[in-house]
């Protein structure tokens, strides 16, 4: 039987930043939208995040950063996915991200950046449009 799997998302907080209001709200919004959600909790290294994404077999990683270290941390997550030979997990990010950093992040493989003021519905719509459950299950 060919059953369509739900979209699985890892919501992750890389680095030492503790601002988790956005990450927790987005995790709940994804859950309410019918996605399967894994929330990493705080203070994860890029290595831990990529390991969790692979183990949990997610389709997307949503990264949240509000303390300015997004350039290093988001880039590192993208690099590590590549190093692990993973090319079908979508990465998006959100938080306090200056406008001029957005194109740089997209260049390293972050598919979309959601800055303050983004509506939950719009983010959910974006996910539905841009993320497909990977592979086909049994």
């Amino acid at each position, binding site marked *: 039987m060919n059953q369509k799997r739900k979209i699985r998302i890892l919501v992750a907080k890389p680095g030492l*930043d503790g601002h*988790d209001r956005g990450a*927790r709200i987005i995790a709940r919004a994804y859950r309410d939208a019918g996605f399967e959600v894994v929330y990493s909790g*705080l203070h994860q290294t890029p290595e831990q995040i990529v390991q969790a994404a692979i183990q949990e077999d997610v389709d997307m990683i949503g990264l949240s950063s509000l303390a300015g270290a997004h350039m*290093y941390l988001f880039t590192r997550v993208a690099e590590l996915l590549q190093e692990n030979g993973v090319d079908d997990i979508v990465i998006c990010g959100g938080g306090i991200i200056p*406008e001029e950093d957005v194109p740089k992040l997209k260049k390293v493989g972050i598919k979309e950046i959601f800055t303050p003021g983004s509506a939950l519905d719009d983010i959910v719509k974006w996910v539905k449009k841009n993320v497909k459950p990977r592979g086909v299950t049994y």
Partner: protein
Amino acid sequence: MFNKKDLDGIRADNKKWQQVFKEFVSKTPERLKRFSTVSGRSIRNLYTPLDIEDLDYSRDIGFPGQDPFTRGVQATMYRGKLWTMRMFAGLGSARDTNKRFHLLVSEGQTGLSTAFDMPTLMGYDTDSPRSRGECGRCGVAIDTLKDMEILFEGLPIDRITTSMTINPPAPVLWAMYIAMAEKRGISRSAIGGTIQNDMLKEFIAQKTLMCPPRPSMRLIIDTIEFGTKEVPRWNPISISGYHIREAGSTAVQELAFTLADGIAYVEAALERGLNVDSFAPRLSFFFNSHLDFFEEIAKFRAARRMWARIMKERFKAKDPRSMWLRFHTQTAGCSLTAQQPYNNIIRTALEALAAVLGGTQSLHTNALDEVLALPTEEAATIALRTQHILAEESGVANTIDPLGGSFFVESLTKDMEEEAFEYIKKIDDMGGMVVAIERNYPQKEIADSAYRYQKQVDSGERTVVGVNKYIAEEMLPVEALQVEAELEEKQIQWTNQVKNTRNNRKVRDALEKLADAAQGDDNLMHYIIDAVKEHATLQEICDVFRDAFGVYRDPGVY
């Protein structure tokens, strides 16, 4: 406050007026189905003496500087001395932040407030693998006593007070400050300032984490005990609602959880054997000032009255200073928008006005660009000027508690007090705040409120100008502050240089003594001061705590 006969007359007239109001509304409906505050509290169409008929002026409102302090903690309030204009600042290296401090002092700021970078806030050195990419990003990097010396170089720390927003490693940063002052010939009894040092709200909201709640309480009580005996002008804790609110709580939750945290600290200090009136006068508080103007003013007034009652009735304090709730305020970062950022100046001005009308002791006004990055000098100066205009042009500081006696404000003050005491009772019934945190109770309450609020914004039920209404197509460009890319490497090299020139045997001895003491009941502050004087790094000392007390992991509730 009103006699029965007058009240009966008002009651009859009010009934008639409400009828008239209803008739108008039946023809032209009200603008909104429900009028409510930013926290979701329903607001009635009119407030009259009937809403505050139970209040007793002397018992519930009283006079400034007198129990129950509803109208202010000092008798003279801003007629004597304006609030302290204390702008939070910190970026890049100690040298960079030192420059910003000199600028702020020359611009008329009357107190310093230090923002640290994430590694410092979490007790890691810049060279830790966990610190990669974070150095100097959201505040200043401090690894050793040398950095602390540079940070305050040339600043008159015997005349101005310094606040440090630091939590798990607060004892270490405080020890560095004390050691720095003493090296400059200023005794610890002469320095004044505040360390935030409030771990309970970290577990609840801000999440800079190191050790579990119970050993964290021990470290905090060590600082309170040490401060009471040796650093009498210092506030060893700033019990903070700010971050609880930023995490998405309502105004009442901010009020209730902050005071419940305060209760937990007082209880722990009493358990240590301290006399309540010996330490309670140095407890200080820190609140958020959000956009809902009257609700915020009422919150500040309710906080003062509640704390006075808690200290007097629950803890039997005798010294009126133990009943004072002195507080710092910061305007709400979470109310700022990245869209049309210049509007943030107006938001901040309104929030600052609420803080002043609420009787704050010190104030930080956010810069218009803080939703984008650390503030530029220009943006930080506008924010400070906002305070100057309030203080010296608007006339709002001419009399004390100008809104006291307003039917609306007094009624809100009373309602918020009652609701916050209900929360406190719930927490007491659980066994106190530490247990409540271990059960994730406040964390869940706040997450629910935050989600509810976001849904209201998304649905347009709550207006956020520039975000879900009055949207402009074009973004006005705002110049964002850049942090030097080479900073991290430079800081690592510098700290290595300090490590190579210190006496490593003495560092090891000091750390071993600290580790031994951590296993017993001694107050750890003296051991920490000895270690920082030998230039032990922040992380070397915090690793002793992590080894002795364990590491706390956020449960990740959402």
